[in-house]
């Protein structure tokens, strides 16, 4: 019997997940497809934040800022320069890589709590910066920028929502593949070593300054790519979409999904995408009350998140004696 946690079990699980992801848009309404697309963009952003906070232990309460930069880069390129939507995504990624690296340099001197403070300030300042009148020519000020939804190319028999879904799915798979390759080897181990024992890591030859600032950059790149995709999917960017609460939403995603877990990013993304939909019926404030409760409850009851729970469940099934 294939073990759930063995390499075969994982491969089968991944194949099933991908198969489901490919079939779903043909079964669901276009609104549900749109929601799934936006959950995928969240998943990419969560991978970014998780690399920084989960693996490397640098707390960021301001990743909404990088999401905003990615979104605005994509929107401005499409709106002002007529760049095709697919070409804006790598540009957004590179701009955020640079921005994250630059913010990571001073952040090197800040540990734990103070980094949280600095990024908290960044999150609060972002909407105001986007509204700044000297940037208005580019950002469109409070009104923001409206962009057009792309059509499926090559005459594929897909409607706009379905095409965008598959486009996003392809990029999500690519980004997860990149993240896995980055984290499964030497670099991933160095990141964890820095999180757990910085002094010991340094003694073993890990260049802490380089790794920490690069991690900030790479993390911002993932989040920026997600931001660009998010802008294309929602077809609109405006300063008030990128408040502190976006950064907190991302934090909720990695905590509920599972810190330092790639599959956790998917569970977290589904959680932050669909819980507000369910809770909105109770009250406008209810989704946030639920987010808050989950944040605290996860820290007490399941610090490894949904991914950790699933792993524990699979391990238990593996250990169970084979049936008759």
């Amino acid at each position, binding site marked *: 019997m294939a073990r759930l946690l063995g390499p075969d079990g994982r491969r089968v699980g991944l194949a099933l997940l991908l198969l489901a992801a490919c079939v779903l848009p043909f079964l669901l309404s276009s609104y549900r497809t749109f929601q799934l697309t936006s959950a995928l963009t969240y998943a990419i952003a969560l991978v970014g934040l998780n690399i920084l906070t989960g693996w490397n232990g640098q707390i960021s309460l301001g990743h909404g800022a990088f999401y905003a930069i990615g979104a605005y880069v994509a929107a401005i390129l499409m709106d002002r320069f007529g760049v095709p939507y697919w070409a804006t995504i790598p540009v957004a990624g590179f701009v955020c890589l640079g921005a994250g690296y630059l913010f990571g340099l001073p952040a090197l001197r800040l540990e734990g709590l103070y980094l949280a403070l600095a990024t*908290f*300030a960044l999150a609060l*300042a972002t909407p105001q910066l986007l509204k700044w009148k000297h940037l208005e020519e580019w950002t469109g000020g409070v009104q923001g920028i409206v962009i057009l939804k792309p059509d499926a190319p090559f005459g594929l028999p897909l409607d706009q929502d379905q095409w965008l879904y598959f486009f996003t799915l392809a990029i999500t798979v690519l980004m997860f593949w990149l993240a896995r390759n980055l984290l499964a080897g030497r670099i991933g181990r160095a990141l964890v070593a820095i999180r757990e024992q910085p002094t010991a890591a340094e003694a073993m030859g890990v260049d802490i300054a380089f790794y920490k600032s690069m991690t900030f950059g790479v993390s911002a790149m993932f989040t920026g790519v997600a931001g660009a995709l998010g802008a294309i999917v929602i077809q609109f960017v405006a300063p008030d979409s990128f408040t502190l609460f976006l950064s907190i939403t991302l934090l909720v995603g990695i905590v509920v999904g599972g810190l330092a877990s790639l599959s956790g990013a998917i569970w977290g993304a589904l959680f932050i995408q669909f819980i507000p939909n369910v809770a909105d019926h109770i009250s406008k404030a*209810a989704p946030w009350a639920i987010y*808050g409760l989950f944040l*605290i409850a996860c*820290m007490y009851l399941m610090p490894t998140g949904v991914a950790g729970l699933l792993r524990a469940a699979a391990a238990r099934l593996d250990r169970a004696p084979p049936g008759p």
Partner: protein
Amino acid sequence: MEAFLHQVLSGLATGSIYAIVALALVMIYQATHLVNFAQGEMAMFSTYLAWTMLDAGFPYWLAFAGTVALSFVLGVAIERIVIRPVEKAPVLAVVIVFIGLLVILNSVAGWIYTYTIKSFPSPFPDRTILGGYVSAHELGVMAVTMGVLALLFLFFRFTPLGLAMRAAAQNPVSSRLVGIRVGWMLALGWGLAAAIGAVAGMLVAPIVFLDPNMMAGILLYGFAAALLGGIDNPAGAVVGGLAVGVLENLSGAYLVGTELKLTVALVLIVGVLLVRPSGLFGRVVVSRV
């Protein structure tokens, strides 16, 4: 010159509010070495409690005192129930719990009181004094700040309980050996912080109006003030608050305009953390690894 003086004076008035928020932050930092990200929302929630009492027809100062007392109790309760289980957890877990608290308080306030903006009365007369340079409310805010600082000084300097709290913060193990209940001292620190925060909320609400998100910017400036003054020093926090208030007003009037206020705070926070992490009056902490 007159305009300049006016800017400085009104900067001192807003600075006083930052100073009170910074004092509340320092209370918790001193006791637990944690920065309370939920401080602003706690103050906001207290202000709503005050609004409820005023709405029910209580006279202002009775509502004021009632709110401070109630906030103290709530602060102690939050420490006992929410913070205590993660006392020894890594920083990340604690920050996440703080953010959870922030979100819960914000949404509960929005749920109960809705997100519409409410006006909140000032206890001080509605006129300007000192030749039109400051309003009575601004002067009142400064007086209350100084009063709070003086009370805290007297409490920590001259009462056995204040001494016990300082001891528990400085050396928990020895304090426990001489019979101080260290856990309760931390809870008292939270209670004090909540009470001080309530004062800040009630003083700022007449200026910025009451809504669930009113404290975000003020908390940010409170952080900047606490860091500038040295996050373990109450008097430093007040000086930091006043300095940050003046700086904010002057940069708003002469440099960048008022639209980038929060960015000014961001630059201040990152700047202080990089150049002088212990602040102007803080203790430089050296640790062995």
